[in-house]
C-alpha cells in the first residue's frame, strides 16, 4: 500500500470509529446549567418610569393650585347619571379584558415558536 493510500485508509478508519453520539438529553442538561441571562437595564428602566411619574405628579400638583382640580372633578363625577357610571365601568372592564387576552395570545405564540 502506498504512503498516501495508507494515510487515507487510516484517516477514514479513524473517522468511522467515531460514530455520531445521540444527544440523549445532553443539550437540556447544558441549558439547565447555564447562568440566567442578566436583566440588563431593567433597574434603570424602572427607575426612569417611577422617577418620571413622580416628577409629573409633583408638577401637576403644583401647577393645579394644590390639586384643586381634583376636588372639582370629583364633584363633577358625583353629578353623572348612574347609568353612565355603569356603562363606563362596563367599558373599562371590557378594555382590560381585551388587553389581557391579547397579551396571553401573543405570549403563547412566542412560547410556541421558541419551543418549536
Amino acid at each position, binding site marked *: 500500500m502506498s504512503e498516501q493510500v495508507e*494515510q487515507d485508509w487510516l484517516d477514514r478508519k479513524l473517522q468511522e470509529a*467515531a460514530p455520531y453520539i445521540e*444527544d440523549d438529553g445532553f443539550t437540556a442538561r447544558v*441549558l439547565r446549567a447555564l447562568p440566567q441571562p442578566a436583566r440588563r437595564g431593567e433597574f434603570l428602566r424602572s427607575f426612569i418610569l417611577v422617577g418620571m411619574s413622580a416628577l409629573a405628579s409633583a408638577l401637576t400638583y403644583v401647577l393645579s393650585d394644590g390639586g384643586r382640580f381634583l376636588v372639582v372633578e370629583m364633584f363633577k363625577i358625583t353629578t353623572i347619571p348612574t347609568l353612565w357610571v355603569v356603562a363606563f365601568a362596563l367599558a373599562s372592564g371590557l378594555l382590560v379584558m381585551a388587553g389581557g387576552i391579547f397579551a396571553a395570545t401573543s405570549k403563547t405564540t412566542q412560547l410556541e415558536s421558541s419551543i418549536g
Partner: protein
Amino acid sequence: MELTDAALVARVLVDEDQNAYGELVRRHQSSIRGLLRQLTRGDVALADDLAQDAFVRAYKNIRSFRGEAKFSTWLYRIAYNCFREDARKRKELVGIDEEQWQAEHDPQTVDPGLRHDLMHALSLLPLHERSAVLLCCQNGLSHEEAARVLEIPLGTVKTNVLRGREKLKKTLATWAE
C-alpha cells in the same frame, strides 16, 4: 433556512438567546463529546461532565469569541482546556500519569476487531500525539486549527500527527494489508 453558527452566536451575544445557544450545543455536542471520550480513554461519564463544563464555559465567555476561527475550533479549544485542567487535577489527586497507564495496557492483550484495535492503539499514544491525531485525522481540523486548539506551534502539531500516524500504522499493519 438553517442559521449559520455565526448567526446563532450573534443571537446569543445580542439577546442572550439561550435557545440559539441550545441549537449550537445540539450541533456540536457529538464531536466535542466524541473527542473528550477519546482523550479520557473511553470514560463516558467523565467525558460528558467535561463536555458540559466546556459548553457552559463557552457560554459564559462567548463575548471573547471574535469569529477569527470557526466556532467549532473555538469550542475544541475550550474542551481541550477543560480536559487538560481535569487531567492535571486527577494526576495530583491519584498520581496517574501517561507512562503508568501505557505500562499497564500491554498492546498484546488487544481483542479482535479493527475498531477495537484502532481505539486501543489510539489510547496507547502519548497525549500530545493522540490529541493531534484526533483533531486532524478524526475531526478534520487543519494543522493550523489544531495548533490553535492545542496552543502549540504549527511545526509541533505536524510532527505529532506524523509520529502518531506512524505508530498507529505500525500497530494496525496487519489490518491494512
